[in-house]
């Protein structure tokens, strides 16, 4: 399953980079006479309500989805790792302050805070990324804090401290690397989560705005043609499900590799 996941991820990345070049049609080109036409040998996924090629738009949507995933995961993982490491290493009031912020942000279930933030900031791709980063770092911070609490008692860390190494050096060179395998697993699973989150917000009309092709927006528009043109709904949804499943397979596989205890348990 890990290999299958890796394969899906590689294909998605290739589609995101080269998709617009490989696509047989311009994702914005309209053929109004053929609007809502079903899949055919010419238009593999059919045409949408404005006569645009859905296959070309799904490929373009891959770029948006993966870009959001990469930015959100990179920013969230970096901020979360730093704050989690600082909270875990220093303890005391610093830990207390960071932990309380984490508790408050975790009191908002799932996407709720992102929905609220985008609602007030206004619907746009930038605001979606900002909102997802604001809620995304929390998971990494909590994970890394736990790892650091354990790692700071390791002998090699105490030895570095005894040798007079600077705190920043101990954190960056000795402590944070012990948390990286767990962060890598979380980041891989987080890619799927971020892609789903962006699609959810776009579906609700709070994310990517038309005419930019996004899988969530395409699904949202497909809803009004559920009876006469179900292909508008089927293909973008399938793209989301396959890519997220790929990241989840890969994340699960990496967890088994990095944490043999989990493998033994399951």
């Amino acid at each position, binding site marked *: *399953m890990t290999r299958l996941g890796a394969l899906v991820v590689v294909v998605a990345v290739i589609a995101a980079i080269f998709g617009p070049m490989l696509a047989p049609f311009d994702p914005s080109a309209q053929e109004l006479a053929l609007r809502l036409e079903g899949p055919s040998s010419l238009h593999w996924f059919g045409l949408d309500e404005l006569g645009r090629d859905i296959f070309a738009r799904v490929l373009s949507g891959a770029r948006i989805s993966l870009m959001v995933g990469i930015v959100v995961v990179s920013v969230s993982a970096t901020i979360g790792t730093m704050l989690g490491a600082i909270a875990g290493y220093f303890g005391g009031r610093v830990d207390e302050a960071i932990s*309380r*912020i984490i*508790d*408050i942000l975790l*009191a*908002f*279930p*799932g*996407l*709720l*805070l992102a*929905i*609220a*933030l985008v*609602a*007030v*900031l*206004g619907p746009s791709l930038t605001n979606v990324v900002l909102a997802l980063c604001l809620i995304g770092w929390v998971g990494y911070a909590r994970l890394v804090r736990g790892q650091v609490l354990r790692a700071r008692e390791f002998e090699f860390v105490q030895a570095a401290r005894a040798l007079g190494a600077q705190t920043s050096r101990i954190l960056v060179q000795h402590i944070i690397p012990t948390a990286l395998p767990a962060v890598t697993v979380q980041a891989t699973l987080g890619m*799927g989560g971020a892609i*789903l989150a962006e*699609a*959810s917000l776009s*579906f*609700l*009309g*709070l994310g990517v705005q038309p005419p930019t092709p996004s899988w*969530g927006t395409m*699904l*949202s528009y*497909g*809803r009004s043609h*559920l*009876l006469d043109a*179900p292909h508008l*709904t*089927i293909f*973008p*949804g*399938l793209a*989301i*499900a396959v890519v*997220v*499943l790929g990241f*989840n*397979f890969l994340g*699960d596989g990496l967890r088994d590799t990095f944490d043999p205890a989990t493998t033994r*348990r*399951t």
Partner: protein
Amino acid sequence: MVRFLARRLALTVPVLLGVATLVFSLIHLIPGDPAQAMLGEAATPHDVEELRRRLGLDRPLLEQYGTFLSGVTRGDLGTSLRTGQPVASQILERMPATAELAAAAMIVAILCSIPLGIVAAVRRGTSLDHGAMTLALAGVSIPNFWLGPLLAIIFSVELGWLPVSGRGTLAHLVLPAFSLGAALAAVLARMTRATLLEELREQYVVAARARGVSRLRSVMRHAFRNSLIPVVTLIGLQFGSVLTGAVITETIFSWPGIGRLLIQSIGFRDYPLVQGCILLIAVTYVGVNLLTDLVYGILDPRIRYE
């Protein structure tokens, strides 16, 4: 137990205060003048000034914060800009629909996931196990805003068995409940399998088998009952994703709950109503988490003494 309860309640108070503070701040995060943003570009300066005064935005920030907190503690969440009705009464009106949907989704999830998890654990390593877990991982990956329309295409459009939207009869509840419960079912199935596998390795299960207890009885009467503790906790923790999922599911199936009210109020820039919905969902989530912790404390005495 009383100390455990008191400690958990004491930890909840600052979280609730933080939640209320964040919800209060939302209106001040609006770029530019919040009153202008709510009324739109066409509003006259007089209307904007009037709304600013009505919402108390012309007063010092600390005073606004104090008024907001005191209102929240009295159940006064302000007035809807669009309908002029109290926000609290509008939310209370929609609450039964969301509660009904959330409860139905959780029942669907539990009924589907527990047998799947048990079968996967008992038949570990077989194709049945791999199939069940692949299905579970697919359940986590399939967005409910895709599953919902797919179910509607099959069961409403093609087969004509179930209504495609609205609320009223039990038939109306089936598609939204399955659409919302699928992801939870997937998570619970994986958890049931993992915890049951741990329990099946315990000495008391081996001892029960050695005493001649049947395999089915040793699994269901001994191992499964103990494996339920983390599963029950997870059900509580996953309530949050059910609440968030309800926002999308209610939008898809035109289900008249709080989630749909939230999305509608965002569309109308009715920010007091947006704040009310967000606050209520977050407070419900905190309450359910607290309840889950307490239940966990009752089920597993070790937690109480940590």
